[in-house]
């Protein structure tokens, strides 16, 4: 095991190059995460609103999730090349599932009384979605995002492990093969900090977007109206 001081010293020596690699991994992570939000959220809405689509698509989503991403990552690299795109796609593939499942759960969690009420007022499905269902689902959506953002870091790194010449995953693989374990641990430390920072960022946005949820959680009582 390398000594902590040794890790810090060597990481510091490599700081500029590590910064470049961190940027690559961050970029791949955010692109994959963004893509999973862009695809996962509308899909969750469709799953909740269309029973036909739910029966047709949900099993496929589950099967896709059941396949280990480490196993399909090499195939993705073959198809998409060793560049950044393949890493983005791997990150997307792991982040996508929690977003779909949690958002769909949130959209289905609307109290049936509120749906009856909306129907009795003859409000359109769109209005009910905007004013009732979507805000109700927001806390669920954010808990999906929190899981997804840490997973997309893992996804990007897994992609880099399998084949790349940049990114923190590449640093870990090449450093270990040259017995530079200090540097490998340094890169791992940066990855951990990166994942925590992204998690904290999502939590911050959550607090800004749905303050009622954070407060009712803090009060340890169930959110009002549930």
């Amino acid at each position, binding site marked *: 095991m390398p000594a902590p001081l040794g890790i810090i010293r060597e990481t510091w020596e490599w700081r500029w190059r590590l910064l470049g690699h961190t940027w690559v991994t961050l970029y791949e992570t955010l692109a994959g995460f963004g893509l999973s939000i862009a695809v996962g959220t509308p899909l969750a809405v469709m799953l909740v609103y269309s029973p036909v689509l739910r029966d047709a698509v949900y099993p496929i989503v589950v099967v896709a999730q059941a396949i280990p991403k480490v196993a399909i990552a090499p195939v993705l690299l073959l198809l998409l090349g060793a560049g950044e795109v393949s890493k983005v796609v791997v990150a997307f593939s792991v982040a996508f599932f929690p977003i779909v499942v949690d958002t769909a759960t949130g959209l289905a969690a609307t109290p049936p*009384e*509120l749906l*009856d*009420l909306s129907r*009795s007022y*003859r409000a359109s499905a769109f209005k009910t979605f905007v004013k009732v269902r979507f805000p109700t689902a927001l806390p669920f959506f954010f808990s999906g995002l929190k899981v997804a953002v840490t997973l997309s870091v893992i996804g990007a790194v897994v992609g880099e492990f399998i084949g790349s010449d940049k990114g923190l995953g590449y640093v870990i693989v090449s450093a270990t093969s040259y017995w530079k374990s200090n540097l490998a641990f340094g890169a791992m430390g940066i990855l951990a900090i990166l994942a925590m920072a992204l998690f904290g960022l999502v939590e911050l946005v959550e607090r800004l977007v749905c303050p009622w949820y954070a407060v009712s959680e803090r009060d340890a009582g169930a959110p*009002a*109206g*549930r």
Partner: protein
Amino acid sequence: MISIRSVGKTYRSRHGEVVDALDDVSLDVREKEFVSIVGPSGCGKSTLLKIIAGLVPASGGEVTIRGRPVREPFPDVGFVFQNAVLLPWRTVLDNVMFSIEMLGLPGNDYRARARDLIELAGLAGFERKYPWELSGGMQQRVALCRALVHDPSVLLMDEPFGALDAMTREEMGLELLRIWEERPKTIFFVTHSIPEAILLADRVVVMTPRPGRLARVLDIALDRPRAVEMEFDPRFKAYSEEIRALIFRPRRERVH
């Protein structure tokens, strides 16, 4: 005003069995009458409310409101449920205005009315509070304001005070009567509590379960305004015993 003509409701359960929820229910309700519906669980009380509101179609029979048959949801009703189901991201005032927004009515015309109602419900000063800052009873008052803000002629209440503690519940019942006397509506009030049903209503509808049928409709001849002390009135006791007998007798017969 509301006429329920031999309304029945059967539906198919998940296992494919046919369930009789309601059978041959007939009732005529006058304008601004307060009708309580009591009965054990599973007697189709909630289903009856949904049929009146046009949310659920009847399998047989018909409901007419001022002579017009109910075939689809219509906005001239207000709903109060067992849980307040307020929107936690909205203030008290915005929760009351929810009805106006969903109905697509002009908000500016109704905001003053919403404030009046909030005051009438004893919530003055709480307009900007959020639901989690209110007690259960206060939340239910907000739900009542939300149900009344668009001035519907019918108020449908499904065990509205069932989730409250006994003391708050009694207080809320009398509050409801006070509000109802200021803003008279035709009220259907579903409850499990026999004393609550008697204390509030002009008439008590007693239902028996599986399938839900009307056992009897009692006229409550107690004076208004009602007060809690009326529970010691001999007539109150007589009503209570009669209702109890109607609800519990069939069950005993089944056991023997």
